């Protein structure tokens, strides 16, 4: 019963994915309406020093590096990499600042808001991304991303409001699904967990559909 249900869901999602891919290819042939943003290609550096300050690495090198970090987190900490839980803990800690009885909430009884391994992971992530951006000369204040600017104009308020709403939806989805693109999408799938594969498929099918609605219909 469970097998059939999971199989059915996967077939439906893959079919929808195929339709969207076909649609995008036919649109690409007709001349895409989406603005093409020029981004630098990954460079091939000649020394480690140059590599560390390069603006962009090959996605395969980056993915391999993240895979090695997964090994380390399993071996050294008996943990899996996941980002979204840290925000739930931060929200809980912020709420505790304004409401003293908030720790009694059923959710915080089960997922205690405190600075733990996952929270430190996201803190490290922020510092790591900052160091990477600064050392490669890539750090700059960007009010609106170029793709959005080209399609919807450069009013920061509209983009920020959209991002705020997107963030709210994203967090509710992550908590319902029990993980995000790192927790389910990398850590769960690599352990071959069934619900993580289903979750990741859902993330991308729904993400692709929504992006098509936003950029091909609304904007």
């Amino acid at each position, binding site marked *: 019963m*469970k097998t059939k249900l999971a199989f059915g869901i996967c077939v439906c999602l893959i079919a929808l994915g195929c339709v969207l891919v076909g649609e*995008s290819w036919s649109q690409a042939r007709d001349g895409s309406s989406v603005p093409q943003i020029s981004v630098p290609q990954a460079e091939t550096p000649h020394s480690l020093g140059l590599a560390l300050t390069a603006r962009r*690495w090959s*996605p*395969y090198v*980056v993915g*391999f590096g*993240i895979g*090695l*970090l*997964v*090994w380390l987190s*399993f*071996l050294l*900490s008996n*943990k899996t*990499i996941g980002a979204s839980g840290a925000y*739930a803990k931060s929200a809980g800690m912020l*709420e505790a600042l304004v409401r003293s009885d908030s720790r009694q909430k059923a959710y915080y009884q089960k997922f205690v808001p405190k600075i733990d*391994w996952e929270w*430190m*992971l*996201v*803190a*490290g*992530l922020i*510092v790591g*991304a900052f*160091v990477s951006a600064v050392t490669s000369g890539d750090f700059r*204040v*960007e009010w*609106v*991303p170029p793709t959005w600017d080209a399609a919807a104009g450069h009013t920061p308020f509209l983009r920020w*409001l959209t*991002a*705020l709403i*997107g*963030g*709210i*939806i*994203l967090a*509710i989805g*992550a*908590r319902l699904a029990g993980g995000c693109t790192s*927790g*389910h999408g*990398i*850590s769960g*799938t690599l*352990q*071959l*967990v069934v619900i*993580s594969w289903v979750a*990741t498929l*859902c993330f*991308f099918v*729904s993400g*692709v559909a929504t*992006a*098509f609605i936003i950029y091909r219909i609304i904007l």
Partner: protein
Amino acid sequence: MLTGLHAKKRLQLFIGFAIGFGFGFLLQKGWVTRYDIIIAQLLLTDFTVLKVMLTALLTGMVGIHIFEHYKLVELHPKEGSMGGTVVGGLIFGVGFAVLGYCPGTVSGAAAQGSMDALAGGLPGILIGSWIFSEVYPKLEGTLLKKDKWGKVRIPELIGVGNWIVVVIVSILIMVFFGVLERFNL
């Protein structure tokens, strides 16, 4: 297993920070902390995001299964219900495209100076997490219980050994990469 190391609480927090540092550094170097790259992935015009994720999956999967075989690590499958996972996953996808970042990359984006991530995305995720904690008691006994799956893994589901699945998934990922490179995506 390095159980002695796992028990050292303060050192563990430091290791978490160090692994996070590497994670953030790599995400920024891979340009997946950029709205433009993530939206291009969701519009299927650039496959950087999937290349990063699937290479990490491939590397991690092979390593973790070897380590598990030699009892160096134990697996941590997530528990969950099919109801919560499918509904939550589809909602997450909508947020993914509207925000243009995911929970990990939004922090990295804020750190590289993307103001939409800092001023919009991060507060949004905190608000969304708070809303969930408020409605959690209503969901706990209903949607989040619907069709409980526990920690079932693909090898158990189809009744074969780990290695067969690891090899098949590895081959499929490499074929997918071959197709992407063939079409210059």
